[in-house]
């Protein structure tokens, strides 16, 4: 086997195709557009009488969730099933880890079951990266969310939502609102929007919920909701992640809602055809008013549908990239032996 080229990002193969999907950091616009285009085709599959294609027939996808999840886990399961793969889901928080098994041992056991792909969610930032680097080079690793770091499939499904409702990214103003500090979704969205050429990315949050160095993402920072929402095309609300908060970052949920909750009155400052997004689960009356979540601007449930298509695209592209890499290495090996 050829040693890993340090100049090549871990998630790409030698031909620049996806072989893992860990983060949107460093991925080119063409690749993100290819993911969106492929997902568009899979969306059409979801509207058929038989919502299944034979692409991953005979492959095994293993969902390994070290952290709770409903939407991400079930949509990954559905995505894999619609590609005809066999799927097993492991909630590690309720299994061997509680009996003292280490992360590496758990994964080696799954590898021994001949899994072709792991979808991993973990509370620690960098977990998916670590697994891709150290555990199983021929198994594709898909990041289903790692700590505060990245949630790349959520980022891409948000991009698909924006593209399908707004047609593109070139002339858009997009505001990301709420708990930026704890949000891997915010990070993935900022990276994707920047790469896809969105000219006006805004984040709106109280100072205590903004990470240090947020400016490096090329975003405008607002601490006032009315000012930040003025004339935006897209509002991405984030969930207030109380479970990740230690110490007094917020006076109270009521106070947060009063200043940063998305209400009908506040939304009136955005463009008349603005769309409202939320990665879920939504906290009604904490970050978003019910009338907005259920209102005509909301595309929150469309996001769930698009999420399945994005996950189908990423699973099939990573599988495809793994196959190409194996053939490439095989070819090199044969060449070396022939010399």
């Amino acid at each position, binding site marked *: 086997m050829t040693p890993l080229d340090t100049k090549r990002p871990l998630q790409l193969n030698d031909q620049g*195709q996806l072989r893992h999907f860990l983060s949107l950091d460093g991925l080119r616009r063409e690749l993100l557009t*290819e993911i969106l*285009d*492929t997902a*568009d*085709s*899979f*969306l*059409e*599959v979801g509207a*058929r*009488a*038989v919502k*299944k*294609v*034979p*692409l991953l027939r005979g492959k095994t996808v293993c969902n390994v969730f070290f952290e709770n999840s409903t939407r991400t886990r079930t949509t990954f399961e559905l995505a894999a099933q619609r590609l005809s793969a066999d799927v097993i889901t492991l909630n590690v928080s309720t299994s061997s880890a509680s009996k003292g098994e280490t992360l590496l041992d758990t994964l080696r056991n799954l590898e021994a079951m001949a899994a072709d792909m792991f979808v991993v969610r973990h509370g620690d930032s960098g977990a998916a990266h670590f697994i891709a680097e150290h555990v199983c080079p021929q198994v594709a690793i898909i990041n289903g969310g790692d700590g505060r770091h990245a949630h790349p499939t959520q980022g891409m499904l948000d991009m698909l939502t924006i593209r399908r409702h707004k047609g593109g990214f070139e002339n858009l103003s997009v505001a990301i609102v709420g708990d930026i500090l704890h949000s891997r979704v915010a990070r993935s969205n900022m990276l994707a929007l920047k790469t896809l050429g969105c000219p006006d990315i805004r984040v709106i949050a109280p100072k205590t919920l903004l990470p240090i160095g947020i400016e490096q993402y090329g975003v405008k920072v607002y601490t006032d909701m009315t000012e930040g929402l003025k004339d935006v095309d897209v509002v991405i609300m984030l969930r207030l992640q109380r479970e990740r908060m230690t110490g007094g970052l917020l006076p109270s949920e009521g106070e947060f809602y009063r200043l940063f909750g998305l209400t009908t009155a506040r939304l009136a400052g955005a463009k008349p055809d603005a769309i409202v997004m939320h990665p879920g689960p939504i906290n009604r009356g904490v970050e978003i008013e019910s009338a907005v979540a259920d209102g005509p601007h909301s595309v929150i449930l469309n996001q769930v549908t698009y999420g399945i298509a994005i996950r189908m695209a990423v699973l*099939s*592209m990573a*599988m*495809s*990239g793994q*196959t*190409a890499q194996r*053939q490439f290495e095989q070819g090199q090996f044969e060449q070396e032996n022939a010399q």
Partner: protein
Amino acid sequence: MSLPNPAELISQMATRLKAHLEHRGISDPRFIGIRTGGVWVAQALLKELGSDEPLGTLDVSFYRDDFSQNGLHPQVRPSVLPFEIEGQHLVLIDDVLMSGRTIRAAMNELFDYGRPASVTLVCLLDLDAGELPIRPNVVGATLSLAAHERVKLSGPELALELQDLAL
């Protein structure tokens, strides 16, 4: 070797297709082109038939049997079938029939939309490679090529070109 003129083939194919459908007693067929070349052939054929029937387009990338060798086609597009498949008489149109694998993938895909009453296969060229037992009902011309030769169709103005892989 000289290649046939596609415009002449289309006119012959239109006549043969009409006769074929008449013979089978099919009065209201649904036309489907396989992306990309098959769609060009289908458009030319519908024009020749003077028909303004909607044309379905099929992208078989998700159904190909070579995914584990070649991976996913990078420019996959959604299939668009603007009519029911269930119970309908279909006319499936492709440009070049070689191994028959594309047609197999296309039929698998069509059956995921419903159970058609019949499928008529129309191809501009049949290269008679015969890897699978799939034969067209209506064909423009049958050619036999050397192993290193390929025919490529460009469109939407149909033009055929002979490619030599040995060069």
